[in-house]
């Protein structure tokens, strides 16, 4: 049988989704179900003097209006900084616009909205802290006065780079802003909670049903057996649906109080202020280098805007620190970070979570060094690359890069783009004022995939960094795989079936994958950090091989041979050397459940595997973006986008491409269009999709994508994962290209998003002899 791993198989998931049979949370209707909606803070920072709910509660078809005081059983949202907990409903103080202050329950969403509009909250305004500058200023208003500072967490630099920077022949500084973005999955967040006498059942648009059950168990003090969490079809997550939201416990507690199932689904305007934002970093960078473009020292100080509460954002700048040196050998690297509170939506993981910020930083540094030395940006990269024989490579913070060959991806990229031809065209267009300027930008990036091992994940409050799979061979010879990962668009049902098909020598259509239901699936960890294939896929392979082993013993018994003499090929077990003495999978599977024919063998074929990875993986790649810049308007057009990714072994080229394209699209969106912004009073200015500009097909280029494969030693598949690679690769490819287009004018730095206005201003400033 030809290998299924590596085949461009179309997805098993698609027919349901294409015909409108998706099972998204908001599609669920249970008998007696009520709708809940939050009254959300209209103030960025205020004390709550009182909440008047009478008018709302008096409306017909309203079942209740509750404030924090009415629900003393509500637990707070967990935090990594003890003492700075976020209440699930604000009690005395609000810290961002959109923070829930009360909740209404009504017969339908229209009535719930009517009731929300009738709740009045008496606020005593406090000074807003809309940005890092305000938060860190002397005498700044404090979000948690008892904490004494808006700095929620801090890791001072370990060591001093000053000597190495001073010793370098040249040095330069950069201040980079990785702007706040909204993950904006097309399906907003939602839950349905149904707390009956026996079980609390929660359907959630989340990235890990098991994580949600674990948290609910801890927060509500209910044993695991009393909680079932189901992640049905989930309409995208991008990291943000791994965060914890108040709906989980509020809907559960209200369901218990009212004895009815409760649905809570966000509107988009709620989503854009309530779902965690991503990025939101400022980086102060200093680099020492020589005239040949060799980088000798790097100092990075990351300031992370955590938003109002210290949640997932505290870990993000640590990931940025770890990946700061990118794919380069830099003798001295010193990094530090702090996470700072502002009166804005809390920040959490967004596709890449800290690593795109690192890749942006180091790739901007490389181009700065190129600009300063006049050495071609390709050559600067080559001169500093970790060589292919440098792996495993231990970074300045002790993190290990598993494997890589950065030169290989770059060589393939250069073959694809005709670099010299592009440079000639660029020169010609500079001379021709009737044509837009042209720029060529590169990004040779490395990130983290296969996120684990457990030591790292436990530090982030997770149960572990392992993953699980259970293979059940049914009596008809089909296989049901239960996996602990929890997909939301990635296509696990197809990719995991491919892995199992090879391990079991079965056709793809005999294998079903189930996930996202704690009652059906053994304990699992979930889907984030590009871990599903690299960690979950390995668990699938191991479980499948164990099922195969058991089936081989059954076949051996039936064939009256020793198990070690039985082989499996094309779905048929046979005795080595006599292929005619064989028996098909179906028969083996069936007999496995008939003890009368099994001799001493235990009946059944059902085995689990829990896989703990020894290493995180490091997917990498080389991308190039070619842009046109309109001289009059500053408008940037992407003329070409070419990428070569190295995620090790590719399981399914079709879905792998899809992952890269989707990630690159989000990276381009960050570079050119998207930014969550706040007014001076802390009011969000981007709380609808009319203001927060998610690009459409008209703004996206055609992508030219390929892969090279440097397998990882971290798992037997050799797969590194690539869900976050595109988003990690793209922003700096675009920004480097635009700066390259304007470099002859003296432009050295531009901050994302590169709106026409910003680019135009840079061109004007350069023309007027100023620095952009």
């Amino acid at each position: 049988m030809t290998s299924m791993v590596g085949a461009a198989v179309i997805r098993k998931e698609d027919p349901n989704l294409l015909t409108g049979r998706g099972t998204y949370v908001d599609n669920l209707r249970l008998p007696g179900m009520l709708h809940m909606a939050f009254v959300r803070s209209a103030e960025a920072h205020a004390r709550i003097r009182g909440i008047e709910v009478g008018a709302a509660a008096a409306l017909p078809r309203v079942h209740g209006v509750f404030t924090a005081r009415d629900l003393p059983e509500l637990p707070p949202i967990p935090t990594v900084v003890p003492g700075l907990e976020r209440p699930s409903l604000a009690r005395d103080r609000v810290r961002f616009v959109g923070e829930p202050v009360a909740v209404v329950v009504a017969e339908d969403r229209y009535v719930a909205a009517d009731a929300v509009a009738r709740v009045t909250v008496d606020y005593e305004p406090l000074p807003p802290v809309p940005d890092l500058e305000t938060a860190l200023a002397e005498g700044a208003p404090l979000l948690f006065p008892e904490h004494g500072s808006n700095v929620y967490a801090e890791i001072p630099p370990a060591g001093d780079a000053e000597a190495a920077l001073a010793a370098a022949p040249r040095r330069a500084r950069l201040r980079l802003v990785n702007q706040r973005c909204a993950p904006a999955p097309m399906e907003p967040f939602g839950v349905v909670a149904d707390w009956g006498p026996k079980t609390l059942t929660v359907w959630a648009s989340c990235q890990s049903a098991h994580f949600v059950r674990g948290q609910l168990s801890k927060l509500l003090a209910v044993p695991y057996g009393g909680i079932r969490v189901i992640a049905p079809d989930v309409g995208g997550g991008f990291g943000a649906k791994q965060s914890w939201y108040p709906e989980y416990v509020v809907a559960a507690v209200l369901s218990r109080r009212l004895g009815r199932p409760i649905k809570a689904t966000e509107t988009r305007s709620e989503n854009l202020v309530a779902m965690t934002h991503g990025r939101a970093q400022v980086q102060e960078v200093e680099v020492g280098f020589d005239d040949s473009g060799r980088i000798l020292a790097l100092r990075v100080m990351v300031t992370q805007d955590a938003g109002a509460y210290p949640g997932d954002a505290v870990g993000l700048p640590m990931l940025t620190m770890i990946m700061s040196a990118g794919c380069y050998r830099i003798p001295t690297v010193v990094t530090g970070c702090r996470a700072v509170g502002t009166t804005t939506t809390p920040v959490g993981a967004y596709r890449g979570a800290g690593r795109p910020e690192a890749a942006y930083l180091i790739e901007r540094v490389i181009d700065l060094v190129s600009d300063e030395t006049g050495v071609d940006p390709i050559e600067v990269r080559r001169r500093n690359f970790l060589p292919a024989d440098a792996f495993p490579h231990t970074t300045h913070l002790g993190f290990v890069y598993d494997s890589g060959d950065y030169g290989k991806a770059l060589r393939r990229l250069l073959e694809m783009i005709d670099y010299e031809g592009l440079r000639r065209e660029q020169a010609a267009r500079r001379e021709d004022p009737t044509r837009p300027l042209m720029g060529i930008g590169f990004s040779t990036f490395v990130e983290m995939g296969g996120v684990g091992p457990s030591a790292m994940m436990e530090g982030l409050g997770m149960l572990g960094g392992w993953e699980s799979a259970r293979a059940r061979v049914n009596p008809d010879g089909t296989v049901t795989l239960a996996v602990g990962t929890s997909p939301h668009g990635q296509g696990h049902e197809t990719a995991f079936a491919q892995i199992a098909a090879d391990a079991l020598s079965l056709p793809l259509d005999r294998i079903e994958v189930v996930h996202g239901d704690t009652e059906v699936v053994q304990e699992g960890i979930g889907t984030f950090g590009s871990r599903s294939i690299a960690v979950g896929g390995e668990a699938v392979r191991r479980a499948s091989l164990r099922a195969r082993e058991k089936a081989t013993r059954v076949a051996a018994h039936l064939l009256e041979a020793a198990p070690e003499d039985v082989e499996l090929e094309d779905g048929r077990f046979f005795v080595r050397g006599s292929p005619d003495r064989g028996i098909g999978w179906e028969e083996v599977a069936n007999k496995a459940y008939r003890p009368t024919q099994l001799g001493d063998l235990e009946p059944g074929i059902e085995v689990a595997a829990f896989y703990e990875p020894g290493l995180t993986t490091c997917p990498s790649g080389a991308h190039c973006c070619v842009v046109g810049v309109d001289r009059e308007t500053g408008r940037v057009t992407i003329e070409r986008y070419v990428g070569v990714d190295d995620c090790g072994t590719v399981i399914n080229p079709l879905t792998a491409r899809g992952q890269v394209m989707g990630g690159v699209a989000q990276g381009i969106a960050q570079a050119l269009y998207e930014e969550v912004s706040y007014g001076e009073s802390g009011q969000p200015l981007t709380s609808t999709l009319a203001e927060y500009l998610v690009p459409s097909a008209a703004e996206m280029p055609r992508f030219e994508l390929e892969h090279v494969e440097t397998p990882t030693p971290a798992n037997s598949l050799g797969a590194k994962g690539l869900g976050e690679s595109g988003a990690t690769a793209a922003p700096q490819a675009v920004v480097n290209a635009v700066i390259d287009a304007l470099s002859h004018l003296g432009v050295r730095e531009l901050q994302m998003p590169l709106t026409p206005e910003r680019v135009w201003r840079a061109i004007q400033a350069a023309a007027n002899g100023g620095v952009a």
Partner: protein
Amino acid sequence: MRIELTVNGRHEAAEVEPRLLLVHLLRERLGLTGTNVGCDSTSCGACTVLLDGQSVKSCTVLAVQADGAEVTTIEGLSGAGGGLHPLQAAFQRHHALQCGYCTPGMVMAAVSLLAEHPHPTEEEVRRGLEGNLCRCTGYQGIVDAILEVARTTGGAER
């Protein structure tokens, strides 16, 4: 108010509040949850359906405005046999969906786009989809699926 309309070929009658949106009539009263809601500013197109053959965002149409009209949703596209419409099949072949949340709206928008422009250029397809957002795919699979159907059928479907 009482309204009558035809949805996917079936006659339906309903008593509705004047403010009820068509999308909520479809999803919550008629149980047709294939049509999704992704925004509240007419920006995302997840809710796209055909109203008398024209694509509309059903979150901006009141149910009462659809009185007497003919509505086609994603559930009504593939016909009784349950097979995939050529556009649905092309979406699968070209991996034009990941999470699938934008997909019903995207497919309905594509049906209407091809009805109006049976032979679109890539540029026309991209501009024609401007009102439909997808956060997962980067759009290339979607564009290629539509172009392929246009090439192989002359856009004649429906």
